[in-house]
């Protein structure tokens, strides 16, 4: 009797354990630095979607430093042979990780979900290594935006400038009226963001790509580039003198408060306007950066997928890749982050007017070649070359007697030394 009871217990225990192990769900560990505000909400939504599919989500959030802290942790984990399933890695860094053999091939998901048809080739190129998908794009930010305070413009009696020449005229009028024409923060990446827009306006998309993606010395060390620098110096002359070290959102605050009229910044600036309870199209306006109408400088956040060993975890990882590109998550995430979906087939009805305009340009520029990767946000070139360009650009901005010809030589030398 006693023995019989023990057998029964054993049977009961195994009955509980067996089915559980049979459907043992995979685990996805995701390294990201979406730890605040709308981004954190979006990450939580992704977690919920994964859990609904029966996978467990292990959060590996490392806050701070725009991801620098996270990268250091990731390197340590990857080198010790214990990488997370997915990590927020961007632009050309994806290629570097893939070159070292850390990333896994996502082509099976990409084929069944038809990624090649959904995502413009300019962007899927960044996600691929040797023709194979190794990363999933999450969102698209447009970098060449001009944010405008309409009240200030009205008060000065000027219209939104469409070209650089118009921008200079408008800015002169604004200056005479006592406004700061261009809000800006003197940090290297912000200097580069404005330079990015001016370079696109002056060079056009083809030469922009030649200079910052292919590093064609005929374009980099040319008179055109000298013009870019001299126009850039003119644009920067409309920034107030105390800009050094200012954070970008402080500069956006100057536009919100009406101290400054305009700011050239990516569409993450929208978050600042929303936080101040302003409506796009009414309280603030978004327009293409002067001279870049119909062109689109993209900055794409993405998740690179690492090679794993456990079968269940690999399945979970593939499900994660699929879920990220599904319309439900794309809508939810991008509404929270201020960016637009990567898929060009999405209904934009629920988005605000700036996002709708962004999507329209995104689609048209993907067709006509006006879509270019932003060098200032690491989509066009390696972090080393990007850093070298930053140094030259920021040095030029802070030079009291900027010399476009000399700086063009410096730019060519700096890029050459990093190739």
């Amino acid at each position: 009797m006693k023995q019989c009871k023990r057998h029964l217990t054993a049977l009961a225990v195994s009955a509980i354990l067996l089915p559980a192990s049979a459907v043992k769900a995979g685990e996805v560990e995701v390294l990201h630095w979406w730890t605040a505000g709308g981004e954190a909400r979006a990450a939580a939504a992704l977690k919920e979607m994964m859990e609904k599919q029966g996978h467990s989500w292990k959060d590996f959030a490392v806050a701070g430093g725009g991801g620098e802290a996270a990268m250091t942790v990731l390197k340590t984990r990857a080198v010790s042979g214990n990488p997370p399933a997915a990590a927020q890695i961007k632009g050309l860094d994806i290629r570097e990780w893939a070159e070292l053999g850390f990333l896994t091939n996502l082509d099976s998901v990409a084929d069944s979900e038809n990624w090649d048809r959904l995502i413009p080739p300019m962007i899927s190129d960044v996600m691929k290594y040797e023709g194979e998908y190794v990363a999933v794009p999450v969102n698209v930010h447009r970098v060449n935006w001009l944010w405008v305070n309409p009240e200030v413009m009205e008060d000065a009696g000027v219209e939104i400038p469409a070209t650089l020449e118009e921008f200079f005229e408008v800015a002169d009028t604004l200056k005479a009226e006592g406004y700061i024409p261009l809000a800006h923060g003197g940090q290297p990446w912000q200097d580069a963001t404005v330079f990015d827009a001016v370079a696109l306006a002056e060079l056009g998309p083809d030469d922009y790509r030649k200079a910052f993606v292919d590093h064609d010395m005929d374009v980099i060390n040319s008179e055109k580039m000298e013009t870019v620098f001299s126009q850039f110096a003119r644009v920067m002359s409309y920034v107030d003198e105390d800009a050094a070290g200012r954070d970008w959102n402080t500069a956006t605050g100057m536009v919100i408060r009406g101290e400054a009229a305009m700011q050239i910044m990516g569409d993450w600036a929208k978050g600042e306007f929303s936080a101040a309870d302003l409506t796009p199209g009414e309280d603030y306006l978004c327009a293409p950066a002067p001279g870049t109408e119909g062109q689109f400088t993209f900055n794409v956040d993405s998740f690179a997928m690492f090679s794993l060993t456990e079968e269940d975890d690999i399945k979970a990882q593939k499900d994660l890749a699929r879920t990220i590109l599904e319309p439900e998550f794309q809508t939810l995430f991008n509404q929270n982050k201020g960016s637009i979906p990567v898929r060009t087939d999405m209904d934009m009805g629920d988005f605000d007017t700036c996002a709708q305009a962004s999507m329209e340009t995104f689609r048209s520029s993907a067709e006509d070649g006006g879509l270019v990767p932003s060098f200032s946000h690491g989509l066009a070139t390696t972090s080393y070359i990007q850093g070298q360009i930053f140094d030259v650009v920021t040095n030029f901005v802070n030079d009291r007697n900027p010399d476009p010809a000399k700086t063009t030589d410096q730019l060519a030398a700096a890029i050459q030394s990093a190739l």
Partner: protein
Amino acid sequence: MEHIQRRPAGVARASSGLMDGLQRWLPKLVVAPTFVLVGIGIYGYMLWTGVLSFTSSSFLPSYDFIGLGQYAKLMESERWLVASKNLAIFGGLFIVSCLLIGVALAIFLDQRIRQEGAIRTIYLYPMALSMIVTGTVWRWILNPRLGLEKLMHDWGWTSFSFDWLVDSDLAIYTIVMAAVWQASGFVMALFLAGLRGVDSSIIRAARVDGASLPVIYCRIILPSLRPVFFSSVMVLAHIAIKSFDLVMAMTAGGPGYSTDLPAVFMYSHTFTRGQMGLGSASAMLMLGAILALLVPYLYSELREKRHD
């Protein structure tokens, strides 16, 4: 009573061999973990950094040796030259100003003034703050739209202008200011301790010989404080060379990269730009700079000991 005493004595005799052994080994055992940690954590990684500086390591370490290539690249880098020049300006001014202010404060405090304890604490207190806090506070004070300049404008002195922080030629001097504010109290404390240790009979003897107070300080007291002077320079030089947090908090190397110091350069190349080889090379040069200061100092210290 006798019975009780005898037993422990017996036990002690039996285990005395063990105790002796333990006594011999215990100090070594206690110190061993520290030695291992220091050996690996400091000297081991120093060596590794040295090795990496001869490789083409990009964003992960690799062992593809390329000789002195990274050092050559470093010497050609405009930004490294700016960082080195800044270190010379910053280090020189920082050490000299801290010493001058510290010595002056110590001498003034040494005049048996009232409330010495309170004043000493006030001057020493900045040392209790981290460099990050110091940097942030000074960034706010020196920011033209936020701090001193705005205050003066609000008070009606509208022509007042102090915008060194946003001027790429002068920004490095604002970092000197903040660092001096932080560290000169510490130098004061060192010198004050030294001054208190000077034999008062020597001073009295000099007084009898008719020497004035400034002469006594310049000729007798300060020269006798040579070791304090040395230690202060050593400590200050270290602070200067490894300075990182202060710059990051105050200017983040800006405007542009005009306030870059070697440590900032090292960090941004190793960890942000994926240039571990180049970053390691710059770290090795910083180590070299510290050794250049440390070795002569150690040499003189050890030689003096031999004289004793």
